[in-house]
């Protein structure tokens, strides 16, 4: 009786993406395992002005939030447009992937992805200028993310 009909009832919003943290301490297999069990989500494309309170309010809709770590510019120590959201249970995190990912926070479509778990140091942007890598190279003007990308502002 327990046939599941995999052909039909997919749950693709919960799937792990292609991104892998290059600074992860451990092998690919360990990283995959942690991602499949994770209660933590990476949240990207935030405005620099999005507050912890706003993130709390939105992500609480899929369950109790254990903690939020706002991503910071490594040099300026100010918010640089990403954060981590950790839930108490995997189910709550899965519901965030299904129903919060791809919706708007602070008028911006945000993106969530599984994270292997917060470790000290991971709250900092890894771009050369201190922010996120994506803000180093982008060409467009985004007033909520410091204006032009760094490569454009540099002569």
């Amino acid at each position: 009786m327990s046939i599941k009909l995999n052909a039909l009832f997919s749950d693709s919003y919960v799937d792990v993406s292609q991104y892998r943290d290059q600074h992860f301490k451990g092998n690919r297999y360990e990283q995959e395992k942690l991602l499949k069990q994770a209660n933590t989500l990476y949240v990207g494309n935030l405005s620099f002005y999005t507050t912890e309170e706003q993130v709390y309010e939105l992500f609480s809709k899929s369950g109790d939030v254990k903690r939020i770590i706002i991503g910071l510019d490594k040099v300026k120590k100010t918010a640089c447009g990403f954060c981590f959201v950790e839930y108490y249970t995997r189910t709550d995190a899965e519901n965030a992937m299904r129903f919060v990912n791809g919706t708007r926070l602070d008028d911006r479509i945000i993106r969530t992805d599984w994270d292997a778990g917060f470790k000290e140091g991971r709250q900092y942007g890894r771009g050369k200028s201190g922010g996120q890598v994506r803000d180093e190279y982008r060409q467009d003007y985004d007033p909520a993310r410091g204006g032009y990308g760094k490569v454009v502002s540099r002569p």
Partner: protein
Amino acid sequence: MSRRRHSDGDDGGQSHKRRRTSEPIEIEDRLESLICRVGEKSTSSLESNLEGLAGVLEADLPNYKNKILRILCAVARLLPEKLTVYTTLVGLLNARNYNFGGEFVEAMIRQLKETLKANLYTEALYLVRFLCDLVNCHVIAAPSMVAMFENFVSVTQEEDVPQVRSDWFVYVVLSSLPWVGKELYEKKDVEMDRLLNQIDGYLKRRLKTHVPMLQVWTAEKPHPQEEYLDCLWAQIQKLKKDRWQERHILRPYIAFDSVLCEALQHNLPPFTPPAHMPDCQYPMPRVIFRMFDYTDAPEGPVMPGSHSVERFVIEDNLHNIIKSHWKERKTCAAQLLSYPGKNKIPLNYHIVEVIFGELFQLPCPPHIDVMYTTLLIELCKLQPGSLPQVLAQATEMMYMRLDTMNTTCIDRLLNWFSHHLSNFQFRWSWDDWTDCLALDADKPKPKFVKEVLEKCMRLSYHQRIVDIVPPTFSALIPADPIFFYKYQDEANSALPGYAVAITVGNAIKNRASNEEILTVLKDVPNPNQEDDDDEGEGFNPLKIEVFLQTLLHLAAKSFSHSFSALAKFHEILKVLTDCDEGKLHILRVVYEVWRNHPQMISVLVDKLIRTQIVDCAAVANWLFSPNMAHEFTRFYVWEILHSTIRKMNKHVQKIQKELEEAKDKLERQQHKKQKDSGDEEDMEKNSEDEDGQLEEQIERLQEKVESAQSEQKNLFLVIFQRFIMMLTEHLVRCETGSVDFSTPWYKNCIERLQQIFLMHHVTIQQYMGTLENLLFTAELDHHILAVYQQFCALQL
């Protein structure tokens, strides 16, 4: 690929064997895929697809019969929205292979027994409906179906069984009739009439105490919130009057009539409904949610009436689509919008009505609330020219009817609306709602707008809210979420404790140790004591105030700052709040300083509970205290209370799980010992120690579980007692003053009491005895007692 190339080379005879072993799994997957996908969008017609698939399956029967049987049983159970597609398929297979048809029917009956045993009543319902439609496909003989129905309806004659049991069996029969009523009446009209008479008698005598608790609106106009069996009965009556002419259901088998009527039919074996057992959990009764009728869809196809069977079938199918695809919002939206027969109905209205019906369902929505928000957003994306307008129309209608809407449903509505707006730049025609400004602030409409704006602010910021509403709405704009520090400036220097507050503040900034800070705090006089004969270790409200106000002031910048502060000074806080009064006072201080920032109060209370600085009962007592009476109807208060109850419940579940796991471990260990007996003395001694340790752990966990369960029970008793006190006081006061008791406050309060029962009904079931004997006794005012009785009626 490479395997095939390789086998063409050296292996010779071996290549055939290798190829064959990899294929069966692939074929099985392919079969599953073919069966699951039949009926989806295709370049060929449904009929030719079914014909083709029947041919393929017939050919595969010799080798894959069991797999095919299992797949077909599964789609019968899990895909009710495609019922008639699959019954046609089975019909075609039966026409080609009579034995297979017989085996399928047997497998279905087996599955039916299993689902009933496993409390899977919804799936069992779909299985019976499938069997019914097989009558239309000439697979099952009508008289044997009628016999099954007779056995189902005879459950209504059983004594001493929960009403929800007989309800379910009646529902199964009635809800199958849109599909098979015509056929059954053609063959066995006398028996069917007798059946319907029996059902009529049952419906007339069954109790409906539970209904008021489940209704979304208390008003009968414009749409009565009917009990689900009553509504279905009216629909079947109408269908019977129309001589069972039903035109909405897609029936592919009609096209195959010439083939199918040649087939031999099978008889259902006699089926006795399994007897009632104490652990049977029948579905809860429902109320049918209606918010639209034919007057609401201005142009285009007309909406079928509320007692038409078309309405039933459409709603049933839409609910089933959501049930199948709720995890994937894009697929779900697409499937809803491609509903077969959509050109004949105002589909957008049906979809919106069904979605809100689920969102407002009491006790709980079938799926997590936030799913409905994102599903509606997806639907708006797919139909940008039409769906947003229907949604706006729905919102407007619900606003107009707030006065009679259940408080729990208002909560869900404002959560949905504020979240929805945040995805659309908060654009709304607020001017349309200026009528609420003329009303008292405690009336439902202005209250709703105020709470919506507060929720919107949590997803944005204060100035944004000021900008999005017309200036006339300023009274409803939420307060600026600032911190109120008692010892802010020199002007407050006369306040007792002011000087210590400054000292403590500096000590914290200079990273003094906990001991140093406690020493500083010793200087705070205790307003509760005349002479300071003890060390000042007892409850000192001023000490708590000075320390906590200062600490939270320094940490006011963000949630993270405040959480760090609570963590860092956890020890001090524990010392200061060692007694119940201390716990209550700490909550009061949190409210005092953050009274303009309810979201911060919520998260701080959550942290205080999780770090065990306050317990759940303290939070309940605080929310019900006279100090908080003016906040009692605010949404955030109930967010906090329900969150507190949930934490308590999860805590109990967690320890129970640990206990179960420890018990399982002991059992496994002892089992293993039995198998490895005859070892050396040493090993036996070690395992005895291990056992001893585990047994000790189990004993400790047992105590922990009992203690947690006791705390949980106490929490509910505190809450119920407080409700009873408040409501009784209000009712008595109104009676002596000859004033109407039914004020907005009363409606809110009594519905919040209902909400406690509904939202936590699983846990509360355990305490029914205590509740009945201790609290909800016959002496209670009948208005309050009615809530308890309605709750009891939900599962009886």
